[in-house]
């Protein structure tokens, strides 16, 4: 069971894997922002090519990325069709009551489609090549400046890493309870909405109780291992920038420059 649970991380050994998670996280966030700089066919082509190269650089099967896009495909198509039928302007090819297909509409629909897809692709590249734990480390690093306004970043980081560490444990626990209740006749998959909601009770109540017990046990163990919660803790896990991150940075810089040059002003 726990195989699905290590997030969507898929182990691999290509260039993208060697990059620092902080760089990847920042690049992903900024990529989503700069995609909106693209505003003509050429700039969209550039964005698409850059995304596909990033996808190819992971050396993972294309199916993984298709799996990333799949859950959102209806949203993408729906938005694109809205653009297609409701954009007014340019040459009108077809008209029926309030619906119209125009050259602007077609262009906009394609742009929206590309925008959605590349954002999903790049986020998938990030999540698939970075362990959840590394993502947590990266978030902690990004939050560090908040220490200045007295945000307890260390504690938030500990909470994040404990939460991540318990995701598989709680999943296993959930399946165990489900099976135990099934063996006593509980039915989780049939009936109407209300019946099903009621069926969840014998699952949720034990799960809550066991989570609280786990929390108590864990806090006892942490305290007896010398955890005081105040400053003065050192860190074993560190992130290091490497030459691969220059590749990340350079790639991103080139993309921005190209977009700035080729977008219409």
């Amino acid at each position, binding site marked *: 069971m*726990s195989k699905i649970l290590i997030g969507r991380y898929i182990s691999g050994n290509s260039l993208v894997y060697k990059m620092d998670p902080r760089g990847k996280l920042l690049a992903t966030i900024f990529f989503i922002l700069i995609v909106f700089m693209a505003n003509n066919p050429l700039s969209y082509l550039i964005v698409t090519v850059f995304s596909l190269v990033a996808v190819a650089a992971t050396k993972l099967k294309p199916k993984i990325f298709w799996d990333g896009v799949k859950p959102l495909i209806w949203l993408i198509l729906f938005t694109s069709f809205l653009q297609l039928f409701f954009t007014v302007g340019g040459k009108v090819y077809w008209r029926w009551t309030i619906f119209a297909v125009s050259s602007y509409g077609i262009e906009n629909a394609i742009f929206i489609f590309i925008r959605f897809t590349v954002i999903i692709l790049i986020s998938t590249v990030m999540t698939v090549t970075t362990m959840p734990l590394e993502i947590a480390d990266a978030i902690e690093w990004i939050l560090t400046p908040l220490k200045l306004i007295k945000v307890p970043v260390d504690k938030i980081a500990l909470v994040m890493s404990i939460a991540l*560490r318990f995701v598989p444990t709680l999943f296993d626990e959930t399946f165990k309870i489900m099976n135990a209740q099934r063996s006593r006749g509980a039915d989780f998959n049939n009936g109407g909405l209300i019946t099903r909601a009621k069926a969840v009770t014998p699952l949720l109540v034990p799960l809550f109780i066991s989570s609280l017990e786990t929390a108590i046990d*864990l806090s*006892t163990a942490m305290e*007896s*291992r*010398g*955890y005081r919660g105040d400053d003065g*803790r050192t860190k*074993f896990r560190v992130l290091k920038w490497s030459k691969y991150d220059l590749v990340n940075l350079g790639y991103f810089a080139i993309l921005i420059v190209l977009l700035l040059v080729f977008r219409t002003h």
Partner: protein
Amino acid sequence: MTIDNIIKIKNISFTYPESDSPAIDQLSFEIPRGSWTSIIGHNGSGKSTIVRLINGLLVPNENEDSFIEVDGTKLTDDSVWDIRNKVGVVFQNPDNQFVGATVADDVAFGLENRGVPRSEMVKLVPEAIKAVGMTDYTHTEPANLSGGQKQRVAIAGIIAIRPKVIILDEATSMLDPEGRDRILKTVHQMQDDYNLTVIAITHDIDEASLADNVIVMDDGHLITQGTPKDVFAQAKLLKEIGLDIPFYMQVKQALLEDEFPIPEQVNSEKELIKYLCQLNSKK
């Protein structure tokens, strides 16, 4: 010369807030340095409460002439962190004491809390992982480890901080027989290598019979203390408080019931085997 006792407990009582009667009642005992002590007793006899009192997780009832002393340091509000540096505890549930996201992170947790610089941790952590034979699993996540492996990681986490005393709070009770044997072997090795004092709280009478020293608890009282030989010779007393007796004692008693003449002084597995073999050769 007096025996060097690393743990001294005198007149300790403890009452849980939600209960009327004390979980620990006027308890006093001492544990010799470097020994392996098993604490046995049935459920609710106060065994686990002792552990939590020794490392300051619970505070005993106030009493003028009571104290807990570990390695010469009296347990007070100020010294509790020193005491925790000297005492490492492995708890019962292997899942609920694993803090780190990987084996190495978990072993480093205690060192991080003590502010040990990273340059030292890089040396100490692999060393401790190696000591418990988990080197191949350094970067493994807890979800992919067995219960026995998680307990070995917990021991590594304790070894890394170099304590004087290691307490196993029913640390083997949730493991399969093989996992339990490996843990006990590992701890025996640690005891020799680092001159540790081991306190093992257990339900397993056979495990207790391998200790240097056995403490029997009942309803918060100390019933008897001594070598396993002396303690298990009192089979009647143990049965009265609802405890099992080791397998060799069961064999001895069954043979006695069948009017097989086994002398009173045969009180260990080795002696019993020897006696029975000799008996055979005489015929």
